[in-house]
């Protein structure tokens, strides 16, 4: 297939369709309106696909819950304030062990905030977001092509682990156009059968999909089952990218758009002989803690750069403990740093700690 120039929201929508997603429900909110718009057009061409413009974010996530119960690959998308509203549903989906893909194209907050790109929902995405102490796998793509692979992978992992997955982008990832190449579409009929789905009790016992466990012992058992599932996810699905880290003296830790910018900064510094590198978590939950800790055998200074005032930095600190010094540079509110700015921050750090040569 040829390269196509597409904005991130369209890329996610197309990749989802190719991953066999056949149900989408959403509610308008900037900066992700291009996604439902594309879905409405695209699904109109597919006979068994359903697009619903829901009356609210709540209704949208609950429709996704219903479609998922019925065994269909389902997705919803929104931006920060809308994702807050969806948390009720995400908690139930986790509790019912249903697969679902939730896209958050983050904007400024708290409250109504603004529509500029930020990373201010890191805590919300990675620490559960709703009630009850569950996890969602969180993917943090940093390019158009990665939006393709991670969106498609999200549907596979959601099914495999029967869990909600959050694809965490920001206004910039959603709006920016880049050339992308799509793999061939998957025929949903070829996907593994779901032996828990509600499709009518024909020739079998009736099924139940529920998150209610009135008996505390049973509820405890279920929680431990979830915990084991999360352990398995941490073991198998943690992903990160290392960029020029081998001989680096300062490692920048950044995800998504911030990581893109940091890459540019690192490259600049390398050109002038300064040894910086980038550690980019691709899954924010599970967080690549082990790999990061291993890194601190050689790199003693980490600079966490986020488009917020300090969220992932907490996970970085927990991951490395006393093995390295963790510095932080943050830009909340939707201000997009330049590679130049980040290069400046790294350079200062190098001179302060005498790492420049």
């Amino acid at each position, binding site marked *: 297939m040829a390269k196509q*120039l597409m904005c991130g929201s369209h890329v996610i929508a197309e990749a989802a369709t190719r991953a066999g997603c056949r149900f989408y429900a959403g509610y308008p909110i900037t900066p992700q309106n291009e996604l439902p718009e594309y879905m409405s057009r695209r699904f109109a061409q597919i006979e068994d696909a359903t697009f619903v413009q829901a009356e609210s974010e709540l209704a949208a996530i609950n429709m996704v819950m219903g479609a998922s119960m019925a065994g269909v690959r389902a997705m919803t998308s929104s931006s920060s304030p809308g994702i807050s509203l969806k948390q009720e549903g995400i908690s139930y989906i986790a509790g019912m062990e249903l697969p679902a893909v939730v896209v958050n194209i983050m904007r400024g907050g708290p409250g109504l905030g603004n529509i500029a790109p930020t990373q201010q929902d890191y805590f919300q995405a990675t620490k559960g977001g709703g009630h009850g102490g569950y996890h969602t796998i969180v993917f943090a793509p940093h390019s158009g092509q990665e939006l393709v692979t991670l969106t498609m992978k999200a549907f596979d992992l959601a099914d495999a682990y029967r869990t909600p997955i959050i694809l965490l982008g920001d206004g910039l990832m959603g709006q920016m*156009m880049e050339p992308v190449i799509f793999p061939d579409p998957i025929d949903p009929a070829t996907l593994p059968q779901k032996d828990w789905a509600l499709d009518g009790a024909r020739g079998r016992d009736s099924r139940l999909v529920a998150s209610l466990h009135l008996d505390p012992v049973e509820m405890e058992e279920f929680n431990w089952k979830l915990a084991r599932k999360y352990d398995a996810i941490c073991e198998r699905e943690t992903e990160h990218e290392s960029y020029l880290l081998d001989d680096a003296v300062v490692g920048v830790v950044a995800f998504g758009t911030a990581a893109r910018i940091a890459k*540019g900064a690192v490259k600049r510094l390398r050109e002038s002989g300064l040894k910086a590198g980038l550690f980019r978590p691709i899954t924010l939950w599970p967080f690549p803690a082990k790999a990061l800790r291993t890194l601190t055998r050689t790199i003693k200074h980490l600079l966490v750069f986020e488009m917020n005032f300090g969220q992932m930095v907490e996970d970085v600190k927990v991951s490395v403990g006393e093995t390295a010094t963790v510095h932080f540079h943050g830009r909340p509110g939707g201000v997009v740093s330049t590679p130049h700015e980040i290069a400046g921050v790294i350079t200062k750090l190098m001179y302060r700690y005498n790492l420049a040569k």
Partner: protein
Amino acid sequence: MTTISTTKTIFSGFGGQGVLMMGYVLATSGMEEDKHVTYLPSYGAEVRGGTANCTVTVSDEPIASPVASFPDFAVLMNTPSLIKFESGVKSGGIVFLNRDLVDVRPKRRDIHVVSIPVNSIAKRLGNTRGANMVMIGAFVQKTGLVSLKSVIKSVKSIFQKKGTKIHKMNTLALKEGAAFVDGLLGS
């Protein structure tokens, strides 16, 4: 001609001038030439009130940020755009002005100015809506960011559904824009 490996251009004007289309054409042409490209439109509330702008980055290597605080080039289709973006243009950069609608001169001395009566040229060609095509033709001829050939090709594919007549008119407008720049160079 430029030798910078990463080049950022801002296109700005009011709605209906085909400003976003110019950016899209440049990005598509860059992609056709296997360059790395990003296209970032202004969005949401910014779009209300009738102004539009977008930033296109063309590079030989993966692009870090699609944002341009200091663009190399600015294509400014009306006066408010000049007021908004003049100060940000990189020293030594080029500002492309729509001479028909921009009635003030840039104040800065450290940037080049290419001033083109794109509306008049488009009107002369009997293609009043083609002013943006004249401009993008002039732009690539001057900057060499992508070849005019790639631009003609990508414009053809973008407007594929509109038929051959539109294609001919677009091609003509692109070539006229390029020719205008050649004329400037010659004089």
